[in-house]
């Protein structure tokens, strides 16, 4: 197979296409409303007064918009340092995404492309643990992290989670689907395994790698059980347990809770919008380069 032009289908043209195009956008926009409305509602609620937020019947728009909820959050002093939690979450999630990318891609490569003794056993073990509910490992992992002296440190948030079988399984699937020809050509040119891995496999797998980055990042970003166990200092908390504290403090004060949720999610949303080109369209670039 030759290098594959994988550009998306060309845009529709002509009269018929115009009608189709309208139908197209109607469907897209229809679905979008369902997806966005709850988020818009979250934002609008964060700008309402408490009584407006719980009024019956509920209203969409705040009659008297107020930033009280946000002021409350930032005035909370040391009790609810939302920005601090945000930064901690960023560091942990980014760190883990990097570790996962490196170790999982290295492990997935031989599992997808090489023949060696014990391959099936190793892969079977890795995949098998995918099925074990994670919290069985909670206490054993906690004891392990303690022995390593990582309690209350960012390492406890980064390394243990990188053991997830998910990344290896995912990338092995991706690598397996890549065409063999380029790899074989490189072999004939005398490239070694490491060169093939870094110069052929990885560039071809950009979309898969980008997707895994996002998955690893978000998995860590949303983890709310593990941080509770391993973090002790309030200033080291990540967002999910932090938001739980917020809910603890503001019970039915929905504007404040929604403001916290909005602060937590908007930066990640922006990050996704910025990165998604690489995530999804990295494919076409890798196709051209390959």
């Amino acid at each position, binding site marked *: 197979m030759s290098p594959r032009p994988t550009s998306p289908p060309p845009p529709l043209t002509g009269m018929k296409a115009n009608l189709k195009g309208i139908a197209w956008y109607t469907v897209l926009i229809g679905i979008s409303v369902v997806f966005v409305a709850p988020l818009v509602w979250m934002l609008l609620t964060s700008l309402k007064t408490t009584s407006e937020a719980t009024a019956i019947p509920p209203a969409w728009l705040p009659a008297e918009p107020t930033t009280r909820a946000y002021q409350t959050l930032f005035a909370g002093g040391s009790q609810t340092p939302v920005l601090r939690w945000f930064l901690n979450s960023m560091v942990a999630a980014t760190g883990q995404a990097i570790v996962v990318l490196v170790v999982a891609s*290295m492990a997935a490569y031989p599992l997808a492309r090489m023949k060696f003794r014990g391959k099936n056993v190793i892969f079977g073990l890795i995949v098998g643990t995918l099925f074990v509910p994670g919290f069985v490992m909670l206490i*054993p992992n906690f004891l392990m992290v303690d022995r390593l002296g990582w309690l209350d440190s960012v390492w406890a948030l980064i390394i243990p989670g990188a053991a997830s079988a998910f990344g290896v399984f995912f990338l092995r699937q991706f690598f397996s689907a890549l065409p063999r020809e380029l790899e074989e050509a490189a072999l004939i040119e005398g490239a070694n395994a490491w060169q093939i891995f870094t110069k052929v496999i990885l560039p071809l797998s950009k979309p898969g790698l980008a997707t895994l980055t996002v998955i690893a990042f978000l998995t860590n970003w949303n983890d709310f059980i593990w941080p509770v166990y391993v973090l002790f200092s309030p200033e080291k908390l990540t967002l999910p347990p932090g938001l739980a504290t917020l809910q603890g403090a503001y019970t039915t004060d929905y504007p404040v809770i929604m403001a916290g949720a909005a602060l937590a999610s908007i930066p990640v949303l922006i990050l996704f919008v910025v990165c998604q080109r690489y*995530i999804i369209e990295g494919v076409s670039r890798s196709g051209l380069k390959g």
Partner: protein
Amino acid sequence: MRRSTPYLFLLPYVAIFATFTLVPAVYGIWISLHDWDYLLPGKPFVGLANYAALFDSASPVFDFFWQSMEATGIFTVASVPLLIVAPMGVALLLNRAFPGRTLFRAVYFAPYVLGVAVIGLLWRFLLDPNLGMVNSLLGTDIPWTTGLPWAWISLVGVTVWWTLGFNAVIYLAGLQDIPRDLYDAARVDGAGRWAEFRHVTIPGLRPVLTFVVINTILASANMFGQSYLITQGAPGVETRTAIMYIADEGLRSYRMGSAAAMSYFLTLGLLLVSVIVFRLFREKDK
């Protein structure tokens, strides 16, 4: 290729994996053979009693455990087909060049960046039978979070809303990997849209599809955040899922041995289902 090469590639991952997954998983089996509370000095060995209790209708866990397994079963059966088909539809919709594509992709993925704690709280409020926006918009008084089958419809609906973007992104990455020339060839052969989908798109997505199917089954079978937050297992314990009950048993009642046994029983069931899925896909390969 040197003989050690594959092992060297595997080394960094396996080191982390062994420390933080394999050893704890094996330790978990050990725990399941004991009456185990990590803080109590006495952790009596009970053999397979924790497993036997799952099949003994006179044991305190029997009813609750099978009730929770049933809940997990209902949720998985109801949500998995939707979570496989709907994101594929969305991925196909988005897999072309049109103005605003980036925006739409972001929109569909947006809910997924919110943690379950946030979406749970948000939807519990929106779905409140007496005060919520959903009933207010529809002009109904449906017990979305407290009645059946409504609670299941809510849980499945919220889960689809929340995670659709995730599967869609995987499908999109897979779609972009399907060589353009295969479509061209199909078109030259006079294949219609449907034939193209069946003979080019689906086979091209197969590796990704296996992954999506298994991963979705696992995610659905491990569901508990949504139930915990939105319905709190209500009505009664009808929507209390297996993981939610296991967490109760292990982390709240400190019966880690019993909880571990339940986990491994669930693991076994999931492995079985996954083997069947693998088989199905492999047969199609032939």
